[in-house]
């Protein structure tokens, strides 16, 4: 333990920061990806012709919902930890 740098707090911040700060947006991205699958090969994914793109399907919707639910739950859990600590 160093008196000039609080290493103990520092590594925890890096770990929590990586999980919540980079992991949650990544999970959100997975959810978005599941909601809008890529256009079939050769098609250009411009977003202009919505009818050409396949829709997500029930499994896709369910998994996407799960991803978003985990993101929301993690945020809610984080806030409750902070409120309880003070």
């Amino acid at each position: 333990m160093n008196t000039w740098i609080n290493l103990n707090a520092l590594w925890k911040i890096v770990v929590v920061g990586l999980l919540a700060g980079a992991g949650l947006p990544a999970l959100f991205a997975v959810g978005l990806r599941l909601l809008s699958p890529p256009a079939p090969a050769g098609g250009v994914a411009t977003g202009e012709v919505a009818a050409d793109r396949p829709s997500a399907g029930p499994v896709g919707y369910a998994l996407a919902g799960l991803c978003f639910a985990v993101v929301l739950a993690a945020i809610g859990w984080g806030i409750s930890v902070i409120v309880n600590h003070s």
Partner: protein
Amino acid sequence: MTGNDVVLALVVVTALGFDFTNGFHDTGNAMATSIVTGALPPRVAVGLSAVLNLVGAFLSTAVAATIASGLVNSQEVTLTVVFAGLIGSILWNLATWFLGIPSSSSHALIGGVVGATMAAAGSSAVKWQGLVSKVIVPAALSPFIAGAIAALGTYLVYRLTHDVAERPRAHGFRIGQVGSASMVSLAHGTNDAQKTMGVITLALIANGTLHSGAKSPTWVIASCATAIALGTYIGGWRVIRALGKGLVEIESPQGMASESASAAVILSSTDFGYSLSTTHVATGSILGSGMGKKGGVVRWHVARRMVAAWLLTLPASAVVGALAYWAANGIGGTAGVVVIFVVLVLASIAFFVVSRHPAVTPENVNAAWTGSVAPVPAPKDTDEVRS
């Protein structure tokens, strides 16, 4: 009302004034990226941020009172010292806001209080080790930590959605941004409103109104929460523009990644007892999101200007704090404090008047970046205005 009560009242008013500048100076930390990507209309964004700052200020009161007591010898702190410190921090905040530089309000406050304490009681009254370990080391590390997390988040987000069509992707991430920006606003309220609560509580203790070690009274919490929320709602459009348009050209996935990194770092460090500046974290995250995207544009000369301002924040606000102390102490007593207060009010009005020509407003905050904080009104002379 005795002379001391007048001084106490002025200290409380000045502290709330600082809280107000803290609010509008830092609106950009939470909302700049949401405003420039169009996730939220400018006025809705600052309104939402204001409400969440208000909520955040009530959410956690763990940080209050630590700010000054761990950094200076609290026996040396008189009302005049607190007052002079606040003057230094408000003036530095106004100057950097005018220049569109997101400098740290926390550092301005700490610098001002440290400078005023040194002027009053000499440098031995400052706890230098506390200053280095609690302020300077976190300030040096936090932008890199936040930037690295934001860069990784940005990379992952683009990687995972590279075959998603442009329109649903932008739409989805704008919705995500509303959530992540809200978390940053909440984090700002829990972090920054505490600092003013700590200062007012310190003043009340110095005056003998509260016994030492007392918690912030409810009226202090409520008034600080209100001041920071009002400041946030006014919106520091100059800083928002510099952060959102000047530093990096931001798309909504980058915005969400940088805000998530900021919120995670600020909230976790608050919880682990590591005090850091929301401004440094937010700026580091935005830079990181620029580096994490392939072909992202980072304007390093804007970043350099911001870092230079960060290095200056502590010493500059310390000098102003010290000058304010000497002036107030030289004139002496209640009159000295009243004179400095009048000077502060006049200086604030001057900054406000100068900032109107040309003004940065919700209407032009998103105008293309041409090298200056205030958008150039005529499109014909763009690049050679200021380089």
